[in-house]
């Protein structure tokens, strides 16, 4: 049985180590915050200029001046700090953030990522995604194994415009987990969702991987 959205978030959360500064993307990555293990202290960064994201506010306590990068109302912690966009991306680009967990439309076998544009269809923009993959120490992608049309998303090469080249360290899908220790080696199949056969994964994964 494929992993659920919650399973994916929980699996990604296991990559978070005590003391990490982490940036979570929009969608399933945002859910990761709910699954951080007790005893693991993680500081969440928001591109719009905040370290130490708190939970959603209680109803009636929403503050229009306090939002995350997905424009959702959030709350602050006692340890929160605020800063400008230039400072925020100095942190990101400068390699001070330990991990980014992002969604993807496509990932290639060499770790290229495409997650910002479908030519002719979707014109939204990359936001901070290109800066994140260029600067964050470790990039974890969480995505469905195939698109809504059943097309594989972990491919030999990306067809969509890239967000970055050779930037992905780990791919967590609803069927399997692929990882690599360094960006000069191929991805390796690490885990398989319960009840899923290796052949099924092979059939739905044009990307070359070990194991």
């Amino acid at each position, binding site marked *: 049985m494929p992993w659920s959205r919650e399973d994916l978030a929980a699996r990604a959360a296991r990559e978070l180590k005590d003391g990490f500064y982490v940036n979570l993307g929009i969608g399933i990555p*945002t*859910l990761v*915050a*709910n699954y951080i293990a007790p005893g693991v202290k993680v500081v969440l960064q*928001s*591109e*719009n*200029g*905040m370290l130490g*994201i*708190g*939970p*959603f*506010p*209680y*109803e*009636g*306590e*929403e*503050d*229009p*001046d*306090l*939002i*995350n990068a*997905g*424009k*959702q*109302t*959030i709350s*602050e912690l006692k340890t929160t700090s*605020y*800063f*400008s*966009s*230039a400072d*925020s*991306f*100095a942190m*990101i*680009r400068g390699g001070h953030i330990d991990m980014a967990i992002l969604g993807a439309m496509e990932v290639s076998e060499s770790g*290229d990522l495409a997650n910002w*544009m479908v030519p002719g269809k979707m*014109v*939204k*923009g*990359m*936001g*901070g*995604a*290109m*800066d994140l993959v*260029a*600067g964050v120490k470790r990039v974890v992608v969480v995505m469905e194994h195939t698109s809504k049309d059943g097309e594989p998303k972990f491919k030999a090469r990306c067809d969509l*415009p*890239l*967000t*970055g*080249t050779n930037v992905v360290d780990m791919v967590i899908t609803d069927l399997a987990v692929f990882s690599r220790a360094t960006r000069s080696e191929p991805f390796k199949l690490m885990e398989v969702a319960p009840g899923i056969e290796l052949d099924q994964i092979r059939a739905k994964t044009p990307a070359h991987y070990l194991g």
Partner: protein
Amino acid sequence: MSSSKIYPDAATALSGLLKDGLTLCCGGFGLCGVPERLITAVHDSGVRGLTVVSNNAGVDGAGLGLLLKSRQIKKMISSYVGENKEFERQYLAGELELEFSPQGTMAERVRAGGAGILAFYTKTGAGTLVAEGKESRVVNGETYILEMGIVADISLVKAWKADTEGNLIYRKTARNFNPNMATAGRITIAEVEEIVQPGELDPDAIHTPGIYVQRLINGSPYKKLIEKRTTRPRTENANALVS
């Protein structure tokens, strides 16, 4: 008070400055920390052919969405323009120029422009569409692309408090691009929620020193908009960040 930076309203603060074809830098992220009084005054002035540097393009009918709807913007430099159907329509119809700049690159371009730095090399966007037509260098095996600093004719920013000197303090994530944009304008106009007397702001807590601010208005009262209202119930798991 001949040297006063304080103007009675947004239209007066913009008087004598606006003309067709100017480049404006505009603070804000989503609908948070957006200089809405000044944008409305730019709208009402009827000036056209603007190039606007702003992370987002507002939403339909609010923020820069106002200037888009009235077709006063010729070109946007932004990192994310979702949530705006009119923008998408004009862009896909070829009526609006759009330069996508990655959010961090844009922030740094503005910071650099304001700090007298012509251009800088960054890894962000290397090997992507963003790199097309730009110089690149390979250093220690990594590819970097050259990004140009941005200087605006006018910067429009929103802050929380100012003193009469134009020293600014922002509030929470409404800070975002505002301090960076404030440095990049040949003329910077700030709208704030409150103007206080000298000595009332802690000099150690100033985010934007007054040298960057030429004109100032009190835009209160503000009815701040929320783009995505998310809350948690008081009864359930208090630790849940997201439902």
